[in-house]
């Protein structure tokens, strides 16, 4: 068995383990073993991948493997990774690991919660390892549906409304993806579902591409929080329990960007070039609108959710610039945003677990009460506004660098507009930090609160190490990514 198939297989085994476990201790044991195994395996995968590249293997996808599944439609279970998917798998593994610890204190229906959580991970990992359109789409949907129950049962606030809205909007997106996949499959002559093979055939007629490109791009764009299809995201993230917000904002939203890049842009290059301007405008709106919306929110989770809309908009913005630098920046941004938004949601969850409010008007002076969490919150905020040395800087720098390389007026103008989001981000982050962390604590009940426990510290430290690691040593990652975005970009430009 291929090492890649282990990634969806381990969460499946974890589900089996959870099913037979009887008390919280056993459940935690299963989760920690599985999540650590996944994290270890992901790190091993990075090493193996880099080793294979160093050995001079130049194939687009490495570690490939495939079994024929449904012959009449040429559906195969085929797996393979390039630099982008390796980076995404590493991100997912880190977030599953930290998400497990962030939900350590879960009390109601622990077993069911982790069962759905694992099913979600099966979908996420399966999506990133697949190179077959059908298998990829299947895993995509596997990752979506557990969200409904995770938010609906374990969420807070208007959870039923948010869960239904999120599920229906994302499923609407996936309906678009499904028809787009059929369009690509039959448009390319109905001989293969393999992404690299379809790209190599390069035979989808242009008039069909013009139909299917917007369909697929919007389909994945819904999950990537593309304006005006982003409205599920603030409600969904605000209502979801901590670990689910982490996994959803951290990893699931990246499925959207990854899908746009790997399927819409890669397989329909002519239409991508022709129609990219529409989506560039929409993503620019996402970027700026998300940042402005974050400025006026008073709920910690809403602030972070709108900030996610802004940052994920930047991912889509960058891939539409169609050059290697910007695309590398897009993948770096996916990584960076995934890590720091997970960190944010973890911290918000921990603060909310103590203060039972997320309203910034009711919080102040937390720095003295819970110094560890507050310092981490500052670090997360600084990463979010792009402080050099942390991951956000590397990603945004690369994106804007790449975007500015496209030298026509339209691209220059939108790049400048999108750049303003950096300033707006600084506004809402600094306002937030000043408001809730500093000053004097006005609520006497908050004075008795305690700082982070060991499980919380572990989750937060792992994420901070990753954020700082990516910020301080970006080159190994960006090299790995840039050589993998090259085939896609060259497919578009030729």
């Amino acid at each position, binding site marked *: 068995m291929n090492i890649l198939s282990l990634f969806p297989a381990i969460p499946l085994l974890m589900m089996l383990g959870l099913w037979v476990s009887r008390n919280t201790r056993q459940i935690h044991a299963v989760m920690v073993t599985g999540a650590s195994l996944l994290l270890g395996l992901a790190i091993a995968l990075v090493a193996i991948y880099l080793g294979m590249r160093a050995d001079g293997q130049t194939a687009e996808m490495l570690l490939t493997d495939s079994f024929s*599944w*449904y*012959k*009449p*439609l040429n559906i195969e279970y085929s797996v393979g990774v390039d630099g982008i998917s390796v980076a995404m798998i590493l991100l997912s593994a880190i977030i599953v690991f930290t998400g497990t610890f962030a939900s350590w204190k879960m009390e109601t229906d622990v077993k069911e919660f982790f069962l759905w959580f694992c099913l979600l991970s099966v979908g996420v990992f399966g999506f990133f390892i697949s190179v077959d359109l*059908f298998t990829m789409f*299947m*895993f995509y*949907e*596997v990752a979506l*549906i557990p969200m*409904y*129950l995770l938010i*609906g*049962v374990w969420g807070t606030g208007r*959870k*039923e409304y948010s869960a*239904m809205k999120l*599920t*229906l909007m994302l*499923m*609407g997106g996936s*309906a*678009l993806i*499904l*028809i787009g996949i*059929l*369009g690509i*499959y*039959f448009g390319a002559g*109905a001989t293969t579902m393999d992404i690299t093979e379809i790209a190599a055939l390069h035979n989808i007629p242009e008039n069909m591409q013009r139909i299917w490109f917007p369909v697929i791009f919007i389909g994945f764009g819904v999950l990537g929080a593309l304006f005006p299809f982003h409205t599920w995201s603030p409600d969904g993230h605000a209502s979801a329990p901590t670990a689910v917000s982490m996994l959803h904002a951290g990893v699931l939203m990246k499925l959207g960007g990854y899908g746009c890049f790997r399927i819409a842009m890669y397989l329909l290059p002519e239409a991508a070039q022709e129609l990219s301007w529409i989506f560039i405008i929409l993503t620019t709106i996402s970027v700026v609108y998300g940042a402005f919306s974050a400025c006026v929110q008073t709920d910690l989770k809403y602030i972070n959710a709108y900030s996610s809309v802004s940052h994920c908009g930047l991912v889509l913005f960058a891939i539409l610039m169609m050059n290697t630098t910007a695309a590398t920046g897009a993948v770096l941004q996916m990584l960076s945003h995934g890590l720091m938004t997970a960190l944010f949601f973890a911290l918000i969850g921990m603060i909310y677990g103590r203060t039972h409010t997320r309203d910034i008007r009711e919080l102040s002076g937390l720095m003295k009460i819970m110094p560890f969490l507050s310092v981490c919150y500052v670090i997360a905020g600084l990463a979010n506004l792009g402080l050099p040395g942390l991951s956000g800087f590397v990603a945004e720098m690369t994106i804007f660098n790449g975007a500015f390389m496209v030298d026509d007026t339209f691209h220059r103008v939108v790049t400048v507009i999108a750049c303003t989001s950096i300033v707006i981000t600084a506004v809402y982050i600094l306002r937030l930090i000043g408001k809730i962390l500093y000053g004097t604590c006005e609520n006497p009940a908050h004075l008795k609160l305690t700082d982070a426990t060991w499980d919380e510290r572990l989750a937060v430290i792992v994420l901070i190490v990753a954020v700082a690691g990516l910020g301080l040593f970006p080159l190994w990652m960006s090299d790995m990514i840039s050589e993998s975005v090259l085939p896609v970009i060259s497919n578009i430009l030729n």
Partner: protein
Amino acid sequence: MDYSSIFSYMYTEIALVGVAIAVLLYDLLAGERGRKFFHCFTCILMLLFIAGTVVPYHQGTGEVFGGMYVYSPVAGIVKSILAIGTLIVFLQADSWLRREDTTFKRGEFYVLTLSTLLGMDFMISSGHFMMFFIGLELASVPMACLVAFDKYRHNSAEAGAKYILSALFASGLMLYGISFLYGTTGTLYFEDMAPALDGNALQILAMAFFFTGLGFKISLVPFHLWTADTYEGAPTTVTSYLSVVSKAAAAFALMVVLVKVFAQMVEYWQLMLYIVIVLSITVANLFAIRQKNLKRFLAFSSISQAGYIMLAVISGTPYGMTSLIFYVLVYMVANLAAFGVISAVEQNSDGKVCMDDYNGLYRTNPKLTVIMTLALFSLAGIPPFAGFFSKFFIFAAAFEQGFHVLVFIALINTVISLYYYLLVVKAMFITPNDSPVANFRSDNSTRLSLILCLAGIIVLGLASCIFDGINLYSFGM
């Protein structure tokens, strides 16, 4: 006349008649002690019947009675699917049949069900319109008795009357259409009629009438008006039989006749189906959202599922045929699982079938809730459950023939359908309830049927061998 060919090709029907007679005799002759094993006896007999006929014996087609009856391996596959569905329904029927007011007529239940099954078997294997019509009637008339089986319950009797009246009307229209066909072509044999059709106005009318008759059985919009009332009034077990087995047989028969007989008039029936599909899926979905009674709810869900099945029919390709049969199989296990849970809850809680009664069911009956949830997910087409695969395949079948807009409409509707399926899931998992349905242990027979359905929901999609097996035998235009 060569009698050996009758036995060689009609083995399914002959065996089924044997089973029906054996059950009838057992009912007559078994004493007080023997009747305890009646259920067991019937199920084992059905199991043997399925085991004997599940794989087609002949690879090619064959004719009996001068072409009145046509054997084809693909029809054999469909017959075994119908028989499996019937067995599952029998398993679920046990607790209902043991009730005091029905226990004395359980023999009738088995025999009537088996005779409808026999009618469907003849219908899908017919090569002549008279044979087809007789098969259809043999499937309809006992069905009306089954619907009115709880005859002292007002609802059931009313549902039976509604069913028989609409069924007779639909049959009358169909017969009228068949008479037009005979008038214009001079034959009732499928094979002779196909080349004689040229698509004149009378033949189009005839085809529309014929389609109405089957559309009623499949309960497509606008022939669906009987569905919700009948489903609600009929005993739950009968409803589940009506919603899967009867529908599956009619859908397959429709595809065979359209492809075989009306091949010359393909653009007419494709247009007709196009309209009917859009209507069925959309109207049924919109009505389903408002339903509070789960049986009515599943009635509308099954109307929209019928619309999806028609997507495979409209393609008219061998691949479409495969995906039709696969869809029907997957739909059958999922729907039977949902009805099995409803029936179990109804039997154990003094007839609770409303969605509000299911609030908080997860707290008291987690296993049933999970089965219901997976069944609904499968109906909604959520992976990794079988419904996802079957939906993908029928979409691919219709898409391949260029029905892009139609597939798009159907896909938008899957989102709407997901909404109302999730409403049930929400009721069971999320909505709190002070007095949920008490915990109960359903009888072994129901449990067995639910396990079978659950296995089907999970395995049918992931194991491609079943789809490949069906694909070996299918045919098209």
